[in-house]
């Protein structure tokens, strides 16, 4: 399978990339690892006429701390999230979710920013991003803005990014000491999740679901129950409240709802087990 013809350009700076996006508009796509976009292009489900490669942009492949957040550059690969001491220390949920993406080859190429920009409800990292209440920094020719996780996923494979915006970094609040868990149910090792759950504890618990609707979604009812002091068992029973799972050859919608409750219960028990004891 070969993508439909397109024109290729290599951007050597964020300015050059956003200038090209501004010029070509919705016909253009940015590509970094390409592990969401290229498979769709090979299937001709995506047919951008201009592909702007940003792999040569300098300064986007780092991970650093900035106050109470960690900052992940938009060219950071999944494999780097798995091994990064900063990520493992401050947002271990993100490292654990990244380790579950695809396989080692995929993790050598794919980027966190790319996975978020693709916005696939079946992907692992968007759920971790939601649970951690992260944000993306988006740059266009006219300026820079911060988009919070809750405002980012707006439809199936659709995000709040404008056609002329590029993610330059992903920010995640530090939550060292809070318990965390990533649960993923698959039929085979490298499969996409049939259902997945990302959870983090602490004062403001976060729980988000993989493949339980048209977008990555937050399990708000579970979070609310936890804040009210509900047990893990009781809170997990609410896991599918806001969901709208699809039925496909892998699972019925009813089975997905069941999995969401079971996996959320397991995740919340892990969160409790890993969290620092109350002072």
């Amino acid at each position, binding site marked *: *399978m*070969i*993508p*439909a*013809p*397109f*024109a*290729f*350009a*290599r*951007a*050597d*700076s964020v*300015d*050059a990339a956003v*200038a*090209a996006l*501004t*010029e*070509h508009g919705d016909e253009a796509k940015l*590509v970094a690892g*390409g*592990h969401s976009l*290229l*498979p769709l292009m*090979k299937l001709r489900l995506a047919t951008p006429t*201009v*592909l*702007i*490669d940003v*792999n*040569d942009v300098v300064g986007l492949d780092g991970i650093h701390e900035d106050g109470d957040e960690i900052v992940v550059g938009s060219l950071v690969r999944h*494999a780097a999230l798995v091994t990064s001491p900063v990520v493992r220390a401050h947002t271990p949920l993100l490292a654990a979710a990244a380790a579950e993406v*695809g*396989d*080692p*080859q*995929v993790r*050598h*190429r794919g980027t966190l920013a790319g996975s978020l920009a693709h916005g696939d409800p079946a992907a692992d990292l968007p759920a971790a991003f939601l649970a951690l209440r992260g944000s993306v920094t988006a740059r266009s020719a006219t300026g820079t803005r911060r988009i919070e996780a809750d405002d980012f996923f707006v439809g199936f494979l659709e995000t709040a990014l404008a056609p002329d915006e590029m993610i330059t970094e992903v920010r995640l609040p530090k939550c060292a000491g809070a318990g965390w868990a990533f649960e993923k149910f698959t039929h085979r*090792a*490298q499969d996409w999740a049939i259902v997945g759950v990302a959870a983090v504890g602490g004062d403001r618990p976060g729980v988000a679901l993989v493949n339980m609707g048209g977008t990555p979604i937050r399990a708000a009812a579970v979070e609310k129950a936890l804040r009210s002091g509900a047990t893990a068992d009781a809170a997990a029973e609410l896991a599918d409240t806001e969901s709208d799972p699809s039925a496909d050859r892998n699972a019925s919608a009813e089975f997905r709802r069941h999995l969401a409750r079971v996996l959320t219960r397991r995740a919340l028990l892990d969160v409790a087990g890993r969290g620092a004891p109350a002072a």
Partner: protein
Amino acid sequence: MGPNSGGGMQASDTVAIEVEVNGRAEAHTVAARTLLVHYLRETVGLTGTHIGCDTSSCGACTVLLDGESVKSCTVLAAQAHGHSITTIEGLASADDLHPMQQAFQDHHGLQCGYCTAGMVLAAVSLATEHTDLDGPAVRVGLEGNLCRCTGYHNIVAAVVAGAAAMQSGQPVAP
């Protein structure tokens, strides 16, 4: 395509690429949509890299990009510009097989052989990134490579032995 305004960046249907393949400098102009696996097989003429599923699932097309395993069906040839690629043809020295190749031979880590090039390169990358690989770690590490013949037992044994040999720098004991 017309030239871009601003930064002088021009989008083009064809791309001039310079890639180091198995230590040798290659320079070609390719269609922008050329996949790395097709470039390696058809332009460079190295057919040891196989096309299996063509959907980044099976790992038969695995090559090393700057030493890291990637699925060459899901990388554009244009994205290899300025980088180094190692295919199965580039592992052995003039006299000896690479320790991982030798281990696959010693442990008979193959049947039909179609997946083998990708398995060996994925294993080399895995052994470069992880020390003390044991059987369970190899099984996890090879999740991106499918074999439809062997049941994996000999492959896992080969990778454990090959990884140990790579780290010790000694030849593989059969």
